[in-house]
């Protein structure tokens, strides 16, 4: 349970980032998830990414729905405001929070049940609207908190722990995000931190909806033979499209790879995403090609991971709505009320 306090003491030699924080400063409460849960690895990757990016923890707002994955925001960034909302509705709450104050970083954490089953509508529309957010789906194909029911991302023919075979078609969140116009789409694997941390960093630095589908095996209910979301299965079938290096604005760009293998993508804030291509025919600037590529590999039983699509010049909801940059809570009656003299004119026009 999360009331167990985590000791704040740490080794004096623990490294600090540019703003003087150690990794420990990005931690949260002690996780209450099962030992070996993929979600805890994702929390660790989020901590690592935020530390490496020198983000002030309190400038992040972390939001989630309901489920095992949605409990995790309590286990990282303890100095951030968090909001554990209702099942499947995190995207709308995040949208509202984002509209209210665009100065913060919005990190949405959800699961496959939360996003693909009950919350598929909100997943769809938040992406369509172009909300500037990192949307991480901790995808294990199963309901953990209610003990092992299939979710909407469970693969056709995959077997539950109780031996039930899934006969429903799976929802592919990556394919869906591509279709919906997400300007950053990636897939990671909780067991591959080397790939995951740069993906999270790149997603945070992206402006627009950044969707990160992270396959995260459930050790309690979906890690057995016959499951297609187990550690063994994903390790065997993981097809990395590329390897990503994230290069922050201030870092020097050093070319150390042969031309043709690299793609540099400069984001709106000047940070650079350097992709080491593992599959020669995948171009991450091409939405249609990305979709075709994912489907083609999927048909072969492969789980494609890496940065699949990015539009570095994407706009977001605030641009569409042309809102003022000031957080709304800083606007008072002076800024918002049209005043008594105007009201007198309105009254006069209504007579």
């Amino acid at each position: 349970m999360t009331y167990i306090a985590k000791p704040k003491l740490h080794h004096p030699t623990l490294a600090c980032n540019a703003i003087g924080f150690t990794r420990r400063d990005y931690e949260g409460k002690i996780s209450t998830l099962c030992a070996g849960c993929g979600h805890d690895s994702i929390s660790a990757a989020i901590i690592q990414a935020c530390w490496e990016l020198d983000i002030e923890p309190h400038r992040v707002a972390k939001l989630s729905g309901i489920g095992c994955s949605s409990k995790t925001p309590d286990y990282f960034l303890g100095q951030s405001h968090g909001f554990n909302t209702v099942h499947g509705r995190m995207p709308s709450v995040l949208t509202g929070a984002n509209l209210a104050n665009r100065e913060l970083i919005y990190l949405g954490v959800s699961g496959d049940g939360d996003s693909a089953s009950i919350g598929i509508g909100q997943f769809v529309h938040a992406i369509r609207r172009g909300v500037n957010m990192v949307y991480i789906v901790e995808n294990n194909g199963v309901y953990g908190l209610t003990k092992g029911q299939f979710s909407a991302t469970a693969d056709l023919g995959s077997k539950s722990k109780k031996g039930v075979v899934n006969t429903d078609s799976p929802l592919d969140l990556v394919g869906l995000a591509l279709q919906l116009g997400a300007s950053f789409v990636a897939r990671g694997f909780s067991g591959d931190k080397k790939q995951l941390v740069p993906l999270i960093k790149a997603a945070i630095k992206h402006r627009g909806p950044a969707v990160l589908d992270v396959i995260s095996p459930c050790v309690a209910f979906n890690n057995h033979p016959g499951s297609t979301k187990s550690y063994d299965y994903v390790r065997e079938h993981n097809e990395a499209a590329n390897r990503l290096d994230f290069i922050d604005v201030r870092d020097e760009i050093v070319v150390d790879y042969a031309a043709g293998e690299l793609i540099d993508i400069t984001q709106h804030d000047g940070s650079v995403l350097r992709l080491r291509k593992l599959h020669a025919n995948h171009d991450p600037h091409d939405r249609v090609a990305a979709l075709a590529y994912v489907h083609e590999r999927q048909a072969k039983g492969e789980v494609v991971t890496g940065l699949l699509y990015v539009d570095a010049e994407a706009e977001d909801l605030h641009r569409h709505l042309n809102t003022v940059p000031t957080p709304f809570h800083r606007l008072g009656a002076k800024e918002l009320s049209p005043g008594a003299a105007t009201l007198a004119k309105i009254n006069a026009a209504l007579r």
Partner: protein
Amino acid sequence: MKPITATNDFVIKFANVNGSGSASANELFAKAILRMGVPVSPRNIFPSNIQGLPTWYEVRVNERGWLGRRGGVDMMVAMNPQTWDADVKELAPGGYLFYDSTKPLPPSKFRDDIVVIGMPLTAICNRTYADARQRQLFKNIMYVGALSVLLGIDDAEIRKLFGEQYKGKEKLLDSNVKALELGRDYAREHLAHPIGLQVRRADAVGERIFVDGNSAAALGCVYGGATVCAWYPITPSSSLAEAFQKYCMKYRVDAETGANKFAIVQAEDEIASIGIVVGAGWNGARAFTTTSGPGISLMNEFIGLAYFAEIPVTIIDVQRGGPSTGMPTRTQQSDVLACAYASHGDTKHVLLFPEDPHECFEFSALALDLADRLQTPIFVLSDLDIGMNQRLTAPFVWDDAREYDRGKVMTAAELEAGKEFARYKDVDGDGIPYRTYPGTHPSKGAYFTRGTSRDPYARYSERGPDYVYNMQRLLKKFATARTLVPAPVPRAARQKTRHGAIYYGSTSPAMDEAIAALEDDGLNLDTLRVRAFPFADSVAEFIAAHEAVFVVEQNRDGQLRTLLVNEFGIDPAKLVPILHYDGTPITARFIAEAIGAHLRAARVAPIGKDKVA
């Protein structure tokens, strides 16, 4: 047959075809009478459709200022062949039937106890205009012209209204004036005038304005500082969100940068609407949504979260007939219980009941303050009758010295100075805890918001005492709300009486008139207009001070009565339900008859008892 004669006191009804452009002509008619200083109260009666089906516009002209629906029709402007039979039937004996006589109708289509006034509108239009659209639109203006002659409406007022409406559009102005003249000329030459119904210049309008409740509520949200609006289209609330957009475009765009000091999202459904509002409220914006009954049903889970997680939310519910899709274009007050106890678990919510557009403005702005002060959902319960009809109402008022009440928000400076932050602790004894906006301080004041149980420091806890502490504190907060909401409005009868009546919302104008009618009959009633839930103590005192209290409502089940019984533990027998719920606005005649029957029965009852004894 004796034709009805009445000056400044009659009801005229326009039967039109939806989408024929009649709405603006009818509004012109109503406004011209207003400009003559005579109060009018128009009501749109429209079925759920877009074009080609029937729609009615009923205008009550009343110098005494009764603004409720009267019932009965003294003059019918029958422009829709489809509803002809019913429209003719609805006329009172001695009433006036104005119709388009271009196509002859058999005598069987008329009545012999009414005055029939035929005018070949289509024929005149067809020979004057070549364009089909013009023929249709100017037909409407033409009948307004003819009516102005028949009823004695000053055409100078109509011209003035045209001048205001078509300022800078001389061509439109000229063509409208021409159509008006054509109508007036024909009436002067061919129709017997004046008729028995007359409008006479008076001075009974005063400073009042003429506006619909949805526009008023939208303006209240602009003045009250709402910055985020999320909504989903639903009759009869859609025009509120659209009006908010319109006013924001006019008054909320930064003059220097051209950027918007507002964000409006038409969401994918009501669940997302309330979710966006909850997120924005959590993050410090003043946010609202507007909806109707079915939307409230969909929002229920979030409403419970906002109540328990203590997030400011403003919900404007423009009520209509339910359940389910019910009567989407008809009025009711049938969401009272659904809102008061919305969501799962033990919940209670603050409700505000505006009586007219003036209060729609006031209460919408107030709701935003109350939501921040109480950190909870606040409902403004309007309805279709107020929301979608223009009503004569007191002018809007705003004091430039007024600051928004942002409630208990702990600042970075306070946190830095070492003030203890405990998100769910009752520090001040009013049940209201302190909150922080996300991003306030690097190391203090962050907390995890959740719908699950927690201790006063926002730490997850399933301990019984922690849960009970929190639920009791929420009750205390609700008691604090009682002291902050608008007080009920009492009105004493001319004579001391054992009877009282409680009413709320759009029932007001009909109630005012009913009380006057009952008093003329020697029946006296003290009244109390309830303006909010939780109820003030004075509501219980009012009930205690009377032998019987009528509770007048526009729903089937007596929902406010149920709330009164439940909240005060009152003997239900003491509260007599007077219920009107056919979808039309309640009338003074209905109230006076229903209450009058009870009071007369009460008068004779003791004698009957004696006889039996």
